[in-house]
């Protein structure tokens, strides 16, 4: 039990501090991912530069400026919209993002609450966004929005299962559902007797990693699974009637969830905040967040790289992929993992 802070604080202050950190972390994560990948990486893949002027140095201020711009916009609601549901929908989506961060560890003690069922909780809570999406689509009183919301609901529900099945393999290998337990299992494990790089589960659970990435891509409604927000067809799908601050919420929700899923993938498969071989807990507390950040940026790079390259799958092709291919593969993965766990 290492004290993270220099002073002793009661549980109320700790809780308040942790809440503030999470509240700040989600927009920060969304900003960083949005700027690096959406604005800069995508631009360079398309032979252009992206924002260069705002803030002087390669336009780092662009998204912050965008956020401020959105905040001061007029609050427009369609006349026939269901007012309360319309207003609540972005909040539901964003809240589910914030809740995932409760279990993500960034250091030996740097976690809001290390639940024993951490992974289970994270996946369960991230699926709440489906409700928000449906609320948004229905309350918008717009046929395009409705189409988008229905597509999204079907897609998000379909891809919950491969996501879960991919993670079950990790849980079997780590003997624990708590994220801190999974991190330490990877840091302290060994492959073939060599303990140099620990046992990052990506090596043994590569099928699970691939499944997780594909399912996460679909959960975030990113190409090739972005039918719900197919820009050239539905013009932002369920978000089409949202402007200003409410749209900002959706945006933060989308990129915040990308941040969360990348962090989750980094924790489950790449070893999280731990640097294997580094036992000094004080040092781990300091460099843990940086290590986690680097790993999650690598995962996010993969996700966004795929997003900017592939066309989108049609809705029924999407569903076929999930139900007929990904779920059987996930089940087979669990079978093999379980069998190997028992015999080895």
């Amino acid at each position, binding site marked *: 039990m290492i004290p993270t802070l220099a002073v002793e604080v009661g549980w109320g202050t700790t809780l308040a501090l942790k809440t503030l950190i999470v509240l700040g972390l989600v927009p920060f994560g969304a900003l960083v991912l949005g700027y690096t990948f959406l604005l800069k990486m*995508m631009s360079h*893949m*398309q*032979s*252009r530069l992206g924002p260069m002027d705002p803030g002087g140095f390669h336009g780092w201020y662009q998204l912050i400026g965008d956020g401020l711009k959105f905040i001061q916009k007029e609050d427009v609601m369609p006349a026939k919209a269901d007012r309360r549901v319309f207003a609540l929908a972005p909040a539901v989506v964003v809240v589910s993002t914030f809740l995932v961060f409760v279990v993500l560890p960034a250091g030996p003690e740097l976690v809001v609450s290390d639940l024993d069922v951490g992974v289970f909780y994270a996946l369960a809570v991230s699926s709440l966004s489906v409700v928000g999406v449906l609320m948004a689509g229905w309350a918008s009183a717009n*046929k*395009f929005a409705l*189409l988008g919301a229905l597509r999204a609901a079907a897609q998000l529900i379909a891809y919950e299962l491969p996501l879960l099945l991919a993670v079950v393999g990790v849980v079997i290998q780590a003997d624990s559902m708590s994220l801190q337990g999974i991190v330490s299992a990877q840091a302290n494990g060994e492959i073939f007797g060599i303990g140099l790089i620990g046992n990052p589960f990506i090596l043994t659970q590569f099928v699970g990693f691939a499944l997780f990435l594909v399912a996460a891509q679909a959960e975030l409604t990113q*190409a*090739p699974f*972005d*039918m719900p927000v*197919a*820009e*050239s*067809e539905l*013009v932002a799908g369920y978000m089409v009637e949202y402007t200003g601050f409410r749209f900002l919420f959706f945006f933060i929700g989308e990129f915040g969830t990308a941040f969360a899923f990348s962090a989750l993938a980094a924790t489950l498969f790449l070893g999280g905040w731990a640097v294997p071989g580094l036992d000094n807990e004080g040092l781990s507390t300091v460099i843990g967040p940086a290590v986690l950040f680097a790993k999650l940026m690598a995962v996010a790079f993969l996700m966004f790289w795929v*997003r*900017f*390259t*592939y*066309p*989108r*799958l*049609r*809705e*029924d*092709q999407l569903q076929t992929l999930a139900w007929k291919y990904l779920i059987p593969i996930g089940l087979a993965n669990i079978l093999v993992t379980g069998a190997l766990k028992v015999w080895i």
Partner: protein
Amino acid sequence: MSARAGDVEIAPEDLRHLADAQLNVELDTGDMVLNLGPQHPATHGTLRLVVRLDGERVIAADPVIGYMHRGYEKLTEFRTYPQVTTLINRIDWLSSFANEVPFIWGAEQLMEIEAPPRAVHIRTILTELSRIATFLLFLGEMGLQVGALTPPFLGFRDREHVLNLIEAATGGRFHPNFNRIGGLKDDLPWGWIGETRDTMRIVFDACNTLEDLLMGNEIFELRTRSIGIIPGELGAGYGVSGSNLRASGVDWDLRRDGTPYLAYPELDFKVWTHSDGDSYARYWVRLQETRESARMVIQLLDQLPSGPIMAKVPRIIKVPEGEVWTETENPLGQMGYYIFSKGATGPFRTKIRSASFSNVSILPWLLRGVYVPDVITILASLYFILGDIDR
């Protein structure tokens, strides 16, 4: 054992059939009418497509055109031939040089003037360059409609080089306004031929990149194969022309099969066809045609004769009385002009047969029973320009 349904006793053997009947009842949802456009990212302009949907399937589709009607045929009645040439650039604004060619050819036929061989060759080069420009845009933009974000940028980036060439020769990137009755306005600037050869190399690279990025992509194939199949005869019956028809297996190209025009009789080129007739085939045919156009440009540059650029024409051009019909293989399809002249400085009446108008007419037949995302793919693969539909 028996059951009761209201007052009626149902025998056990009938119960089984009833149960089956219940399972076969489909959920009866009402139809939804969706308005795609006139403001919509997928409709290339102001095309309004009123579709009646059942869930995600289209039951009926009805294109509503005319949102961009500019009254071209009426405009030509009150303008002189050079002024009309300026205006008709803007019918199909992506391949604008190709729009001027049939009109000027028709006027030259009425005046019985022949443009000198150098002018004819340069006209052909510029026509093929505009074909490359518009097809590069198509190759990129169809990727966008299918969902890939990167191809349109690559298409636009490489198209810039072709547009710079056209600008260097004519002064205008999009609206060259370079044809005159009897030849061309100016000759080529120094160094243009070398630049064009370099640009054609860039065009070949661009085609290879887009082929690797899109055509080899399994997701792209899933989205475009067997989508929007146009049977060859039906397409020809509706008036579909150009690459759309060639992708359905009909081997018809006005550059080779129609009345000989420009420098095409002296060129050695292949007409690409594909037997499938689906969206993938249309993309494939246009990709091959881009490469073929680049090869044609290189051939033309090798064969470029020297000489004057303009035939002897009077200062004030009055086209003699008569009627003429000209048709050419434009990038979008078959474009034709019917010029009726009464001996004045401008045409008395011009009828413009634009390719996209007929290409779009097949939409009600083609869109029955497809999914909404497939509607977008089909619209993208047919490749129409609103200015061409509405004039």
